[in-house]
């Protein structure tokens, strides 16, 4: 078949991811992990991995199973791998978390669970990387190149993570120990900067220009952005490994990576402004307006990073910097796009088969943007307030901010469930003859 069909398990990925996000927010509201404990404490490791693997990576994988076939106009290499991958990722993350809790003394020290978790996660991500990689490879143009770079970064992230897990269990020898001692920034850069950020950038190019009726970004421009980003990650990973090998410290590598990362952000900003200014559609949809707030958060993250480095305070405020990047930029963008993707896929699944044969609603009839926008605004305002409270060392106010984020998220998830249930569609066109109401958690394709 040519073209793209509806990905069967994308909704399952989104639901799992949102469940993990609720877990992370609940932990933060309860005062678990940073800022109550140190950034490198086992409790913070639990929190970071719930957010980065459970929420962001799982949501990104679910979106890519749908999006990569659209990019290359070819079916997914194997639809059958998506559900086993999700199971492996969930089991792997659970094992890893129990291992971390053991590391921190909250559970018995079953440290062997860490390498087991790592192996399960590598198996899950491996299925995702091979499946998406073989699909994207068919037409590696524009955004698909960002996805391929993101998948390569995911492999690097997983490799570092696995070494750490084996080292924590005492199974990785002295080399493993020295990687664990110094390599954590490389793991974080490859994961947040390479896998999550480069992939989100690539996906956003196409989604933004599609929803705003804007011409695609000139390939020379987007290639330059990608080259800067891929170089930043390449320098961090390769240079970092060399630096660890020669025990020469990571300062030089991290400085070059920071400059390249800043350049990537600036080039991406230029590309996004180009898409916005070249748009034919004047009235922006909610998902685009909210994506703009995530771009503002990315710009804010870059600005905060520069100021902190110049004032020599980066290490002291690393938590606030990472919080803004993770919840303002990445989570904000994923939530905004998830809101639109769910509406579109639900519409296509329900009404595609009867379109042209019976009156059908429009995609925007499945959502209530006026109602949803206030939840998004609450979410973003809470994220920015939380960032400021982390900087001001106000842990109680920070927990209140996260509670406010949770309220915003509950509102957004409620809207998404209503969309999936066709709750806002007026009844004459809600289910025309031949149309079938969608299942909440998977698609009948």
């Amino acid at each position: 078949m040519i073209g793209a069909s509806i990905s069967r398990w994308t909704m399952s990925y989104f639901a799992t991811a949102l469940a993990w996000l609720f877990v992370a927010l609940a932990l933060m509201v309860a005062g678990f992990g940073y800022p109550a404990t140190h950034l490198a404490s086992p409790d913070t490791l639990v929190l970071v991995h719930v957010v980065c693997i459970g929420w962001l990576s799982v949501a990104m994988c679910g979106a890519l199973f749908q999006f990569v076939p659209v990019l290359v106009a070819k079916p997914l290499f194997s639809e059958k791998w998506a559900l086993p991958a999700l199971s492996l990722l969930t089991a792997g993350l659970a094992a890893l978390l129990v291992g971390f809790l053991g590391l921190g003394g909250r559970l018995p020290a079953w440290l062997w669970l860490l390498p087991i978790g790592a192996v399960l996660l590598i198996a899950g991500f491996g299925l995702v990387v091979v499946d998406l990689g073989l699909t994207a490879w068919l037409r590696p143009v524009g955004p698909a190149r960002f996805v391929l770079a993101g998948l390569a970064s995911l492999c690097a992230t997983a490799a570092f993570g696995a070494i750490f897990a084996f080292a924590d269990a005492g199974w990785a020898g002295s080399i493993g120990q020295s990687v664990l001692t110094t390599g954590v920034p490389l793991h974080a850069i490859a994961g947040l900067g390479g896998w999550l950020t480069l992939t989100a950038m690539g996906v956003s190019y196409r989604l933004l220009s599609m929803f705003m009726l804007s011409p695609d970004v000139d390939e020379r421009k987007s290639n330059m952005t990608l080259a800067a980003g891929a170089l930043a990650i390449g320098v961090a990973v390769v240079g970092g490994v060399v630096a660890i090998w020669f025990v020469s410290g990571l300062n030089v590598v991290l400085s070059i990576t920071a400059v390249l990362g800043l350049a990537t952000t600036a080039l991406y900003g230029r590309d996004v402004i180009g898409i916005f200014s070249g748009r034919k559609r004047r009235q922006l949809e909610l998902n685009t307006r909210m994506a703009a707030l995530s771009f503002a958060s990315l710009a804010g993250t870059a600005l905060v990073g520069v100021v902190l480095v110049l004032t020599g305070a980066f290490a002291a405020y690393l938590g606030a910097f990472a919080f803004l990047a993770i919840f303002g930029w990445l989570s904000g963008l994923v939530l905004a796009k998830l809101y639109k993707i769910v509406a579109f896929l639900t519409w296509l699944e329900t009404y595609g088969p009867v379109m042209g044969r019976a009156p059908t609603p429009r995609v925007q009839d499945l959502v209530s943007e006026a109602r949803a926008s206030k939840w998004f605004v609450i979410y973003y305002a809470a994220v920015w307030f939380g960032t400021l409270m982390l900087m001001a060392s106000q842990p109680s106010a920070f927990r209140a901010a996260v509670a406010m984020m949770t309220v915003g998220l509950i509102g957004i998830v409620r809207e998404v469930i209503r969309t999936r249930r066709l709750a806002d569609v007026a009844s004459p066109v809600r289910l025309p003859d031949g149309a079938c109401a969608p299942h909440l958690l998977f698609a009948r394709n």
Partner: protein
Amino acid sequence: MTDYIDVDVRPILRAGGEPFSVIMAALDRLEPGQGVRLYATFKPIPLFAVMADRGFVHSAQALDAGEWEVLFTPATTKQTASPSGTAVFDDWPEPAVTLDNRDLDPPEPMVRILAAAEKLRPGETLSALLRREPVFLFPQLEKRGFRWLGGFSPDGATYELTVRAPS
């Protein structure tokens, strides 16, 4: 910019000859990336499908006295067609409906094409201009037994789609 080789088959056609072998011979001489500028005494619709199969998109322009100039440009993106073979495209009639869906918000182009396609009589075709390759439309067309042929214009800004109703 694409470099074109001129192929003028008007003398052959006026003399009642068969220009196909001349055009194919010209194709064999092309350098990678080169296109063909064809002059003919009629709009060579059957040739479009043959050239599409070889990876060329066309843009036809009427000249005086019923003559046509057609630019065949190597497609940057390979042309795609419904997977039922290309020989069957030779007898496609001129479109009964023409849609310009380029400035519609997604997914309105798909909605309009499906609505128009359902109204076609057996064997009739419709043509549509779009901004993007309608990847979600193709499975719907296939399920309903429609055949289709599509590709980007040489500048990459417009996707031209022809859909034929089952006969």
